[in-house]
């Protein structure tokens, strides 16, 4: 009897361990049926043109389209992906750049999401073309005179000669687009020693707020230290982690400390998703990641969506799954 019982326990545990493998990525941590609903929500709200808007029925944009495609691909769903890919291909300009949607004739920050989607769907020609454009997408600071570099450092306390990425062409580099491009380029396989990636990390470190974390990119204005914000801090932490930084990097450690105080029911959905991705990236924050995952799961609505927002739904799905950005 005793050895029989042991055998049953042994077989059960083997089966339990195998189940996620048998079911593939659809098995999330304890809520497979919810994840099905989430994926169904994404599928059902693809626009006729093949893209996705931020909200159901709204016009398609590159960012929600890229993230929804990434989520579907990760969930093993092929239906609708080719239509999505065709949409992004139509958005791609001759230069390789991609703007906010088909109407946009200038590349901008949203191309990070298209790069992730091209990579996921093995659209290597479009991926390489876009990657080349992103690596050549600079802010406007190269044309400014030395006296402005100096006065900027005095008034804003950052070094504008460090290259990052702007949201929009020929403007300033900021924390979020720089982080998003670091994440997407690294995921897409740009070599670790690439100078633009190193410079992007240097910019993040240079723009760290006094008490840890990041805001949009001005840690100081005139005579005042500004507050950091949770969302840019979460995204920048993902970027730092993907580039191999650990809690030993002082800026990472202080950012984690800053972000920890905001984790809770008041944190927004998109921020929960990014902070979950961030905390899953570091060894000392795994426990906090579990806490965030519980709060985020509870935000899932009856239709499977997160806040009825397609971008946030796709991002939350990925954050709650075992999806990881390539390092």
């Amino acid at each position: 009897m005793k050895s029989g019982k042991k055998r049953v326990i042994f077989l059960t545990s083997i089966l339990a361990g195998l189940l996620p493998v048998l079911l593939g990525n659809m098995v999330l941590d304890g809520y497979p049926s919810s994840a099905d609903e989430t994926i169904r929500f994404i599928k059902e709200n693809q626009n006729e043109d093949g893209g996705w808007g931020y909200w159901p029925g709204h016009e398609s944009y590159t960012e929600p389209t890229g993230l929804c495609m990434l989520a579907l691909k990760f969930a093993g769903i092929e239906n609708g992906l080719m239509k999505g890919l065709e949409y992004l291909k139509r958005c791609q300009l001759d230069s390789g750049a991609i703007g906010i949607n088909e109407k946009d004739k200038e590349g901008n920050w949203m191309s990070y999401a298209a790069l992730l989607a091209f990579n996921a769907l093995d659209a290597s020609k479009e991926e390489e073309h876009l990657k080349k454009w992103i690596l050549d997408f600079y802010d406007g600071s190269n044309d400014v005179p030395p006296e402005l570099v100096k006065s900027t450092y005095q008034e804003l306390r950052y070094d504008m000669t460090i290259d990052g990425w702007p949201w929009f062409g020929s403007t300033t580099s900021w924390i979020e687009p720089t982080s998003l491009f670091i994440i997407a380029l690294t995921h897409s396989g740009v070599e670790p020693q690439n100078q633009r990636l190193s410079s992007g990390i240097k910019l993040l470190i240079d723009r760290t707020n006094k008490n840890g974390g990041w805001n949009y990119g001005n840690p100081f204005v005139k005579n005042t230290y500004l507050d950091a914000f949770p969302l840019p801090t979460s995204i920048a932490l993902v970027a730092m982690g993907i580039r191999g930084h650990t809690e030993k990097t002082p800026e990472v450690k202080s950012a984690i400390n800053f972000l920890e105080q905001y984790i809770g029911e008041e944190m927004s959905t998109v921020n929960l998703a990014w902070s979950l991705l961030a905390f899953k990236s570091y060894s000392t924050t795994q426990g906090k990641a579990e806490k965030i995952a519980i709060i985020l799961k509870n935000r899932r609505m009856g239709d499977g969506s997160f806040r009825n927002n397609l971008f946030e739904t796709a991002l939350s799905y990925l954050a709650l799954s075992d999806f990881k950005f390539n390092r």
Partner: protein
Amino acid sequence: MNECKITRRKMLGLLGKLPLTTISAAGLLSCNRSKENKKQSLNNKYQVAIISCASYEKAELMNAIHQGWQKTSPPEVKSKKVVIKPNLVEYSSERPINTDVRLVEALIQFFQELGAREVIIAEGSGHRRDTEAVWKKVGYFDLINKFNVRLIDLNYDNLHVIKTVSYKDSLIKELFLPETILSSDLIISVPKMKTHHWAGITLSLKNLIGIVPGIKYGWPKNIIHWNGIEKSIIELNATIPSHYTVVDGIIGMEGDGPIMGSPKKIGAIIMGHNALSVDATAARIMGIEPDRCTYFQAAHVNKLGSLKAEDITLTASRIEDIKTDFKLDPEFIHLKST
């Protein structure tokens, strides 16, 4: 936002000297808008009401709004799609950064009572992509169910490309602008009375920067800074003028505004149909000489209204009764009236 500085300084010398090129801002823009503008300029007088309002208590707010509205040749609201554009930037429990939600609540009720077809609250916050976090904290989400209104994040709206009314050397010859704004019948600008470390002062004219969508231009909306803040303010207001302004001057912000300054009690709302005239009046209440504010001057030169006291008919309270000198950023001390 360093670059805005050099552009701004460069632009200071240019503003007021360059004529606006006459590019049409047609497209989805309502024809009603030009009719309203004609109505505003009748008799070359702009009516501005300074209404004492000591608190954000509902009855007091409603009474103040009723009074001010009646005295200022207001636009017709019945059956109109009304967009209320507050100023929502960031959240702080200590600093009055945003238009107080109680004022917006009173305005929703007021416009619904006047028979508006729809009332929409719309804003595109300038610094934070994370609108959910800020709007929830400042109580704006509660308005949705309480008044059955839509709350639109202009940063994520459907967009349309519009040719702008712009300076000859402008970086902004066309703009992606939100459908909610372009399809509205009335835009009601509801700014907070604040000082501003880059522009000196921020009221209704500057409040329109919030209609520039973040998904196209980023957070902050950096194209505005590279183009020059003052220049961009003029171009935006020339392209999409608001129809009416209600300044939240009950508690404003002085010193290191628009975010890090200190609360300043004034106890008034300032209302009128011409944004420049309302702004000029609010500036006088703050102890600022409107003539010295570069973008006010440029707005005046380009006929977006008038900043001159003789062109403005004041009703209700007098400026002297309510004037409260604001502490300014040291760079803008020259704006102070003597």
